[in-house]
């Protein structure tokens, strides 16, 4: 196997957490396979992000800070990653499976003649080849997949792999991937950013979700309050999103986001099978629900049977006190 390339997604010169995890896994695989590791960054801030990535194990980092990659286009960025893979002689390309990473795995694979593997959660090296495990049916089953082609492109699920340790910095090289104008047909006109900068659900360490038991959108400050106390982000069940109480970007489950945080707190969520599929690989699950028979308690490490309107304010206070002390 000639080599591994990790594409490091970045914003304003700061690499994404999922990308640092991909770099960590890339470094472990490179060591175990005895092959070189390279990294690449793209867009405004690519050079600054490359300098950070350079300390995480690659032999070199290609910084693609060119006008053609100034805004995001899947085709242009996919082409750039393919060019970087060819320039570094990589036969395995890794990315973090963020929203952008999912786009880019497909777009880069298309330009490398590969079939991508999305959202891997584990790797195994056997006979000089890498096999991957990836959840399917939103986590209701795990598929083990192997790639036979000359190049494989794999996106890694956030929170599934450990980032590597920092070490000596590798050289950073400016690299122009030569993006043709045909890849620049999609133009970003505007970015409507929400008021506060939030961590995405899929990358959050702590997720606090509210369900139908919250009884209405006016009660979600309780969910937000506990999330703030724990340092987490807010999620929601499908029922709540379908009712219009919360935006669909917060939905956890088979038709929403699949999450695997260190701590998942389910408030007033009964635990429909499609919700459980989306959060059952969380490391620790806490559930608060009035109904002791709710299916959520079958997967909860710590279940508390009670009224969310009584329990959540007390829990929020107790968490703040525990963290303060």
């Amino acid at each position: 196997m000639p080599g591994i390339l990790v594409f490091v997604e970045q914003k304003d010169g700061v690499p994404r957490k999922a990308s640092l995890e991909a770099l960590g896994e890339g470094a472990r695989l490179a060591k175990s396979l005895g092959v070189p590791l390279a990294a690449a960054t793209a867009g405004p801030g690519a050079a600054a992000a490359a300098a950070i990535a350079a300390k995480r194990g690659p032999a070199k980092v290609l910084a693609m800070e060119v006008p053609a990659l100034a805004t995001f286009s899947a085709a242009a960025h996919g082409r750039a990653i393919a060019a970087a893979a060819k320039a570094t002689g990589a036969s395995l390309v890794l990315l973090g499976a963020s929203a952008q990473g999912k786009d880019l795995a497909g777009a880069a694979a298309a330009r490398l003649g590969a079939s991508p593997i999305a959202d891997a959660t584990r790797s195994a090296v056997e006979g000089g080849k890498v096999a991957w495990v990836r959840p399917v049916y939103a986590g209701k089953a795990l598929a083990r997949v192997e790639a036979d082609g000359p190049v494989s492109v794999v996106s890694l699920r956030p929170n599934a792999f450990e980032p590597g340790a920092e070490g000596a910095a590798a050289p950073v090289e400016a690299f122009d991937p030569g993006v043709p104008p045909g890849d620049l047909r999609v133009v970003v006109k505007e970015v409507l950013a929400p008021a506060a900068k939030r961590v995405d659900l899929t990358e959050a360490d702590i997720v606090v979700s509210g369900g139908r038991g919250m009884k209405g959108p006016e009660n979600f400050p309780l969910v937000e309050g506990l999330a703030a106390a724990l340092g987490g982000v807010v999620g929601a069940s499908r029922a709540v999103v379908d009712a219009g109480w919360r935006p669909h970007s917060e939905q956890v489950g088979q038709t929403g986001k699949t999450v695997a945080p260190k701590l998942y707190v389910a408030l007033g969520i009964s635990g429909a099978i499609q919700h459980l599929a989306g959060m059952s690989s969380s490391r620790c699950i806490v559930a608060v629900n009035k109904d002791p028979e709710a299916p959520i308690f079958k997967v909860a490490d710590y279940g508390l049977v009670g009224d969310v309107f009584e329990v959540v304010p007390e829990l929020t206070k107790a968490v703040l006190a525990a963290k303060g002390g």
Partner: protein
Amino acid sequence: MKIAVCLKRVPDTTTKVRVGADGKSIDPAGVEWVISPYDEIALEAGLQAREAGKAEKVIALCLGPKEAAKEVRTALAMGADEGVLLLDGGGERDAASTAAALAGELGALGAELVLFGWKAIDSDQAAVPHLVAAALDRPCVSFVTKMAFEGAGLVLHREVEGATEVVAAPLPCVVTAQKGLAEPRYASLKGIMAAKKKPFAEKPAPAAAATVRTTRLEPPPARPPGRIVGQGTAAVPELVRLLRDEAKLL
């Protein structure tokens, strides 16, 4: 203008997944099959565009087994004008092989706008639309929550982690639907009756191939059985103690 919507037949979200006898696919016994929910949203967006006079025709395209005729009929009953089922002859097909089969047919159909759901809820790959777009040399705009026709192209809102991007894309192009783009309608009785008279072609798909192969399918590791810490606010201190001392999360 023609719009093509690609649909995948998948197990319904309430399905309990069991591993089949071959150890690498699901046991189809008792599974309720449906159009993948995001593809249904894409179809609805296509139908609304036609109803707004932006397109003459919506074609539902599905690659699947002969049983997938049911999902194509559903699309016709919802309002699609024509259905095409590419009959998959069996054998493992990876994302690239799926995309190659769809791209071949889409090229022949001559649809300027190709719509997909952003992912299928069985394989969870979100790869095929980009592979199809590359094969057709068209741009692909993903995670779209709003679509408007402006001039000779489209203005699309795409939802990406924490922000909404407004992008302009020319036609022809490929667009993938995220929740919020449209609320799928139910097929009316009239629609179901009308569907029977609509053009519906079944034709063999190109042979399946796979460089990415599934070698095993298994249930996820079982979680330890659930544990009830206690009842009501009285149990809050114990819950916090466990989170701090046992789970080491505080």
